[in-house]
């Protein structure tokens, strides 16, 4: 599903070149459930952004789904994000003026799906996540856990193959965090590939494969020996 070869990403900070990522090699197969852990500044978020095509590596090659996604133009890149990738953010990033339904509907709307079909798919997705009675509520009328589940519904409404989660429980209390993580694991059980960034060891411990990063490098990869 994912193959990263010798990915490097540097940022210019003042006069200095700071390496966010160096020599990253990583392969993720379809259906994997993987966590990326490490202290802040270790480059795990940058890695996730590159995986999500929100950022471009300075060096190296990124193969997504058997295709070189390193140097795509804006349009095909957006196309890939729309159909292949779902994002779950720490701060949910729901649009405050839109209702839960409209937030979940957004990717379908942007893709030009007909309203009747949209409605049906959104209602189904919300019902699946136990949010059917919250459909008309706006984000500020929802609890944190509900918000994150709306965000998950939005991330999965296009049936992407890959879910990228950045600290999905980082902004939630324990109980709702638990709920959210169970939701994510249910998605994995349906066959979606999950890559999750977290610095919560307990959360990381639940995943089948853990990647530990430090100083822009992969320090440890529990699934490395699985690789071909």
């Amino acid at each position: 599903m994912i193959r990263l070869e010798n990915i490097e990403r540097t940022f210019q900070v003042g006069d200095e070149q700071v390496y966010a990522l160096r020599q990253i090699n990583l392969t993720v197969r379809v259906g994997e459930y993987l966590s990326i852990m490490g202290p802040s500044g270790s480059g795990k978020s940058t890695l996730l952004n590159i995986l999500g095509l929100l950022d471009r590596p300075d060096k190296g090659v990124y193969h997504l789904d058997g295709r070189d996604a390193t140097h795509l133009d804006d349009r095909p890149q957006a196309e890939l994000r729309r159909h292949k990738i779902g994002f779950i953010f720490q701060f949910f990033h729901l649009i405050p003026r839109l209702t839960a339904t409209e937030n979940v509907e957004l990717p379908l709307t942007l893709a030009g799906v007909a309203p009747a079909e949209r409605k049906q798919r959104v209602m189904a997705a919300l019902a699946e996540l136990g949010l059917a009675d919250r459909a008309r509520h706006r984000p500020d009328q929802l609890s944190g856990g509900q918000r994150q589940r709306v965000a998950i519904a939005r991330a999965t409404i296009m049936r992407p193959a890959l879910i990228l989660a950045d600290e999905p429980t980082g902004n939630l209390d324990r109980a709702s965090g638990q709920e959210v993580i169970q939701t994510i694991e249910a998605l994995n059980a349906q066959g979606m590939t999950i890559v999750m960034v977290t610095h919560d060891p307990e959360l990381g411990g639940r995943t089948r494969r853990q990647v530990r990063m430090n100083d822009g490098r992969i320090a440890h990869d529990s699934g490395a020996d699985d690789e071909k």
Partner: protein
Amino acid sequence: MTGALRTTAGPMMKSNDVVRFCFGSLAGYPLRTGLMLLAMSIGVAAVVLLTALGEGARRYVTQQFSSMGTHLLIVLPGRSETVGGPPPLLGQTPRDLTVEDAQALTRSSAVRRVAPIMVGSAPVAYGNRTREAVILGSTAQMYAVRDLTMAQGRFIPEGDIRRAEAVCVLGHKLKAELFGADAPLGRFVRIGQRRFRVIGVLTRKGQSLSVDISDVAIIPVASATALFNRSSLFRIMVQAQGREAIPRARQAILQILRERHEGEDDVTVITQDALLATFDRIFKALTLAVGGIAAISLGVAGILIMNVMLIAVSQRTGEIGLLKAVGAPGRQISRLFFSEAAMLSMVGAMLGLLIALAGQWVLVRLFPEFPISAPLWAPIAAVGVALGTGLLFSVLPARRAARMDPVMALSRR
């Protein structure tokens, strides 16, 4: 993974979804939206109202000219080309126009009527009331030439032009000031040192450009010659046989007067149509200028829209980042912001037109005799400029939104 990647671009976002989305974001920031609508609508209203005023002024002047009479030619002493300096309207003259000159003009077949006009000023007294008034010396012809109407009595009678009959016709206002409610007909007023019998009163016709006709006394031209002790005319008003006869009449006048003035072209002939056309041009230019100034205010509104849209873009970075993350390409995002600006300018323009209509309605009620109406092109141009500036000035914010780095946009919470 097996399934081949979809390379074709998916279907575009549906346009009523675009409208709904933009409407939502506009309604989400009511103060900002309201301010922009206000700026836009004031700009549009200003364009429409100011051009309506300019157009009204033009029509007003045109009306005034036609109230002078029809198929008119005005003969002035002096020749604008040769005299140089101030135009002959001021009456500086190398050779006077005389009553005989005026009489000679009737020889032309193109000329229907001729009214010599002498102008002076003298105190007019009745009883113990005295008013300083403009005294016009003329003939019976003036009645038809100037298209006058009588409120009471009759105009100066036909007859020998050299007979200095002691009769006068009073303007409406002068009559009211001298006589109040008394009946003036048959009474005697004193003009200068002479006594004149009042034989008529003019109707209230209002201004007639050069002279306020309500504030004059009209006496036979021979009487005026005697009263002011001079024979030079202020001007000769000539009525042509018809509209087509005006050029012929002009030629005839110039020729006759050249013969009478020893071969010198020392008069100026103004045709009413030429004068009217000139004023028409002036006022059209004025209307355009005023409209242009108002259009600048629309431009300012456009810049305001740009400003506020830029703020909107930075306020909504999170939203933009999210749109990118869920698969909106840059072009789609700029299209969304663009549509937002377009909707804003459109609604603003419509509001502006409504304000302009209301303003016109009020003005028409306040000044009923002033013909205010916006020319048809004004609202069209105003709405066009509003949309144009709105769109033009949203290019930059929309571009900025489209080019925003999604990582940066999403990192802010």
